């Protein structure tokens, strides 16, 4: 497909997927576009469909309905495989291969291979090349898996929870590595993570999934600026309802705290704070959960930037 979205890193229309065994729909009717040149945070609670979406984009699964394009190509085709790298959550590697074997495998299995980069990433982690992968610590194994993903010089790198089993030092090292690579080669990254503060520093696009649906797909800065964290008397709640979109609100005693998407000037007496990305994301993740007033079916916003 070539169209207006041909340059987009990810583009989905009506995307749905259902696992045969689990029964429930992992993804339903997802439509979004992630423009090119972005570092995207893929956020959602456990079971929201993050891994499913990344597996679909990496070509490991095929959509049940609708369609998904990565860099304008169909995932799983030879063209897409050459340009997209996927690092799944379990970071599987052959435990009996040495690190050198693993990198050699990357060289053999890919049409293009950047040995220098792959070896540098491994060496910077202080990992000897002759050690078997099965004997490495989880953090070091992640580094080898990342070297394998970056060695193919992908235009789009899909990372499923890459930081989950790393210590804080290794986390920031690997994130710095990723950011440097992304900047140097104009590489797109889609990164799923539960570590929201780290996403705030690195990501400039946000894709929020909830229960298999896309809740948000938006520029991070726009998201920060268009939302407001309000505190004020509870009886003023009505002034918000019509005009703004209340993402989440909580009443304690007579005081109301609310995260809203602001549309136009505020009426009433509110203490207004600019939320951080983390606050916005937590707001969206909590909205609609039990104990929260199911405020509004939040309007989906297509590419706004």
């Amino acid at each position, binding site marked *: 497909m070539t169209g207006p979205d041909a340059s987009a890193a990810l583009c989905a229309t009506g995307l749905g997927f259902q696992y045969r065994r689990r029964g429930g729909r992992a993804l339903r009717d997802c439509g979004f576009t992630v423009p090119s040149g972005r570092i995207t945070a893929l956020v959602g609670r456990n079971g929201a469909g993050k891994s499913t979406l990344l597996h679909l984009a990496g070509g490991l699964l095929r959509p049940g309905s609708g369609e998904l394009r990565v860099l304008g190509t169909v995932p799983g085709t030879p063209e897409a495989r050459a340009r997209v790298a996927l*690092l799944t959550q379990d970071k599987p590697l052959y435990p009996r291969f040495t690190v050198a074997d693993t990198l050699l495998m990357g060289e053999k*299995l890919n049409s293009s291979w950047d040995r220098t980069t792959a070896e540098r990433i491994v060496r910077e982690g202080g990992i000897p090349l002759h050690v078997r992968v099965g004997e490495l610590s989880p953090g070091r194994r992640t580094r080898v898996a990342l070297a394998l993903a970056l060695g193919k010089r992908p235009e789009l790198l899909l990372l499923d929870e890459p930081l989950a089993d790393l210590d804080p030092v290794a986390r920031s090292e690997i994130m710095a590595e990723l950011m440097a690579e992304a900047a140097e080669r104009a590489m797109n990254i889609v990164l799923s993570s539960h570590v929201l503060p780290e996403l705030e520093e690195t990501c400039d696009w946000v894709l929020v999934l909830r229960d298999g649906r896309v809740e948000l797909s938006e520029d991070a800065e726009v998201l920060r600026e268009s939302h407001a964290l309000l505190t004020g008397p509870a009886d003023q709640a009505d002034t918000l309802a019509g005009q703004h979109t209340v993402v989440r609100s909580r009443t304690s005693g007579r005081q109301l705290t609310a995260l809203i998407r602001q549309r136009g000037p505020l009426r009433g007496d509110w203490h207004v704070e600019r939320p951080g990305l983390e606050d916005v994301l937590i707001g969206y993740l909590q909205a609609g959960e039990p104990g929260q007033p199911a405020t509004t079916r939040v309007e989906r916003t297509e590419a706004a930037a």
Partner: protein
Amino acid sequence: MKGSLWLAWRQQRASAGIAVAVLVVAAAIAAYYRSGMLDALHSGLFDHCATGPLYCTRPYTGLPLLLEIAPLKYLGALNIALPVVIGVFWGAPLLGRDRELGTHRMVLAQGVSRGQWFATRFALAAAVTTALSGLLAGVFAWWWRPAADRSYGLFWYDDTALSGSGPRVVAAALFGLAAGTLLGLLARRVLAAMGLTLLVTGVMTLLLEWTHRARLLVPPHVYVSAGSIPKSPMGEKWSTGTYGLITASGRHDSVFNCAYPSGTQLKECMAAHGYVARFYEANPASDYWTFQWTDTAVLGGLAALLTVVTVLLLRRRV
């Protein structure tokens, strides 16, 4: 394609090495014992032995005179067990190991398609299996030939010769590989896949041995001799153990109605009961190839079928 073949070889080279080692050891043992066997045959000790299934005896002592064929039978037994061994240790982990570790996801996220991933590793395993089983069957045939169908050697219908030689060994080994590969794709754990493969290939092997003995797929020939004249000699034929008498109307009765070897008693008994002929059932030696090709068709067909099922399920399970 080249890359995935490299990976397939990198992962299977240890197994291929073991296969070569087994083959070399088998060939060395065969060469050693076969030359001993030829020496014994050339010594003239066996020259007085007649063909046929009756033991030939030693002069003076009267003890049976036999070639040393126990090692040959062990090789035959190995060939019979080959589908089980290859299925469990090569077929089951072929896709199962990657599925258990999740490493197929890593390989497929590189520049390799599902089809290449499966095709290269299965083709390599099938090629090594064909070579190994074919050569082992060949070694058996080469070793067996001087002692074939002799009372002091090994008859064609012995289990180890009938099932441990010829093209059916190759078909059986490929069947074991295909069964193990499919079960490795279906089971979640390699160990479970290995257990299931052991069961499936073991049952199939025993089932085919049973069809040989029951003459299910290759029915025996009925040899009839008129009146009480001596029956045609059994020779190299594989008897079913069914002997009997035939009436003028053509009814076949048990031999126990006139259980006499020959002579006047037999003649009188046959006349009294109205029997006009005697018969026995056996498979002639030429049926060796009928058995071989029947087994080859059954096992080869199953191997092909299981491979097709594996290919069809590949997209769903991987």
